[in-house]
């Protein structure tokens, strides 16, 4: 071995030793750190913006501190569904930034990807949006303040049966949540004595909904239950529903999140009369909701009160209570124990955390799109009462 090679070998050994030694644990700062994971760029960036507005509005509404502690938010961008990158980001948040809590998550695969990490590091993680039932089963540190498709669809199917609808066609987008929605509607509606005459699955990249609407028309059903992934497809479907004469023919529209406040105004008059069952309407009439909307607008005038921002707001409430219970120290088990029994008045109505599933139990409302003061709103028609997540154990 010549000298230069020996030096090289020494450097190598030293380097690998350093690599394996790892970093000494840094002393924790005073502030409680909350990592927020969501899409802040790309086609779904508005979710990220709404998460940010929701959590910051909540902290501001509490006077800037929660349980006497400063809160430091760290935002991380996943773009779209990208489990690999999400896992890297969360790993970095846990290992390097040493966050105490995690929140956010729009897409199911991204949430599923971090389950082993939060389990291993005992980091309480509040899902603000992702709506597949199975998520909370994957780690006992998952909590959820959004909804599941089973939760909102089952009461809708019951209502449809009560309205003497016998034949319904389902038309859902062909991916996880859509299939959840189809299964939920089918099983409940059949149980109530109805018939699902056709189950249409629409590819996720669909832009022309005309053919599907023609199929719905041809099926001779009295109503169509639909699930769409939000954004442009909602508009496209509703447009096709009107333009192809389904509304005129009296085929009832049954949906859930399709009349999302975020782009409801874009629908124009074509949205009038659309019927949906959902857990939150921006027009919900209560002091808590008015307080939420005011706080949100103060934080970000462009932000919209919808299921994403209310999910973030309520998620922050849960984190607030966990900070209280642990006095700002990182203690996942203690925090979770406190969160399991929470019960409070949310902007959406009375809610509580189900101790077993760690999913939110909440009222589901039947709504119709109406015009109020020049704006289109989801006007609540009736409450179906508190609903749990029916999807687990199915």
């Amino acid at each position, binding site marked *: 071995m010549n000298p230069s090679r020996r030096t090289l070998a020494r450097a190598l050994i030293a380097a690998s030793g350093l*690599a394996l030694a790892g970093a000494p644990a840094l002393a924790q700062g005073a502030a409680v750190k909350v990592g927020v994971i969501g899409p802040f760029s790309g086609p779904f960036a508005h979710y990220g913006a709404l998460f940010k507005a929701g959590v910051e509005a909540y902290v501001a509404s509490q006077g800037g501190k929660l349980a006497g502690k400063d809160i430091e938010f760290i935002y*991380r961008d996943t773009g779209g569904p990208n489990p*690999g990158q999400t*896992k890297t980001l969360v*790993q970095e948040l846990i290992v390097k930034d040493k966050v105490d809590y995690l929140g956010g998550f729009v897409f*199911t695969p991204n949430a*599923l990807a971090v389950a082993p990490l939060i389990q291993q590091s005992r980091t309480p993680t509040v899902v603000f949006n992702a709506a597949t039932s199975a998520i909370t089963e994957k780690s006992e540190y998952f909590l959820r303040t959004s909804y599941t498709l089973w939760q909102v669809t089952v009461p809708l199917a019951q209502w449809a049966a009560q309205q003497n609808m016998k034949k319904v066609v389902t038309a859902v987008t062909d991916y996880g949540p859509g299939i959840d929605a189809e299964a939920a509607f089918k099983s409940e509606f059949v149980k109530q004595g109805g018939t699902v005459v056709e189950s249409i699955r629409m590819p996720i990249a669909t832009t022309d909904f005309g053919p599907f609407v023609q199929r719905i028309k041809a099926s001779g059903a009295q109503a169509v239950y639909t699930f769409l992934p939000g954004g442009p497809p909602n508009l496209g479907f509703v447009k096709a529903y009107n333009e192809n004469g389904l509304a005129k023919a009296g085929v009832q529209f049954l949906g859930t999140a399709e009349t999302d406040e975020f782009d409801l105004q874009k629908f124009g008059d074509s949205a009038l009369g659309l019927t949906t069952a959902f857990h939150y309407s921006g027009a919900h009439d209560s002091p808590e909701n008015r307080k939420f909307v005011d706080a949100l607008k103060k934080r970000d005038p462009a932000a919209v009160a919808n299921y994403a921002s209310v999910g973030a707001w309520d998620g922050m409430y849960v984190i607030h209570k966990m900070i209280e219970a642990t006095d700002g120290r990182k203690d996942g088990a203690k925090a979770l124990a406190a969160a399991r029994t929470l019960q409070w008045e949310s902007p959406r109505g009375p809610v509580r955390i189900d101790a077993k599933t760690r999913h939110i139990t909440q009222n589901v409302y039947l709504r119709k799109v109406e015009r109020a003061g020049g704006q289109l709103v989801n006007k609540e028609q009736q409450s179906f009462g508190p609903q749990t997540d029916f999807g687990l154990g199915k």
Partner: protein
Amino acid sequence: MNSPMTSTVSTAAKAPAQPVPAQAVRCAPPWRAPLLLLIAGLAACALFPDQLGLITRIFIAGLFVLSLDLVVGVAGLATLGHAALFGLGAYAAGIFALQVHADPLLGLGVGSAAGALTALVSGAFLLRYQGFTFLMLTVAVSQIVLSLVQKARDWTGGDDGLSGFAMAPLLGRFEFDLEGRVGAGYALAVLVLMFYAAQRLVQSPFGLAVRGIHENRARMAALGTPVFRRLWLLYTVAGALAGAAGALSAQTNAVVGTDSLSFALSAEALVMLILGGAGQLTGALVGATVFTLLHHTAASINPYHWLFVVGGLLMLVVFVPPTRAWAWLRRRAGGLQ
């Protein structure tokens, strides 16, 4: 520095060529660049022990872009469907861990074989075409694969992704830890070994012939090269590397999503490659590193508008190629001394 072709300063075609001694034609030793990579990789791990997740991603992206470089840079086949090889490798490794055995090295072999097999089968069809037709056909093939994976929900988890598998300890001893130390070391080891293999490949007579096909397909055929068979073998080897990268991604993340088969991933890898310099294996690694780091930092500083930064950089790179920028910097540095 890796390419056996870039032996001299390229003078303008008009000027009479200066004689250059034959010794300058010889290749650099194939172990040199991989060794440097190993040192750089270990140093990065040592310096940033709390960024191992990101570093692992860079290693995996590097291996993937390396594979792409064999196809685009060495063989001259521009493709936008390379994610099909990566994604199927990832799914194969994930399904293998879930259904058969959780050993990472076995899984790596399975993923790599899946990538190679995909390349072998699709290459038999694709490589009959050239240029823009080839490019668009690779898009079609990768989209077909994506549709099938979405459809086979029972096996792949569809759009929810494939998760719920845990890897057994590496070599039966090293558990995959939360900080990602084992993951990073594992990915680096695989990358270095495969980089070495790719380096040997490029410097072999086979590699020379493939470069010849890139430069002038018709002339190579007249020299007696079975063009299709050479490209087919190269594509299959590249498939094995891409599949291995996919398997590493599946194993270190313990999850596989349909994004691993997406057009966006293919396009991103191509951007990384062009950024680093197609045709140079080290260029592939540099491009993957620079792009991933840039994406990560720009998105951390301001997640909203990182597209400005990346878009601007891409445009800049076209007008000021990295090699020219380096040369300029070196001249400046030299002038100062």
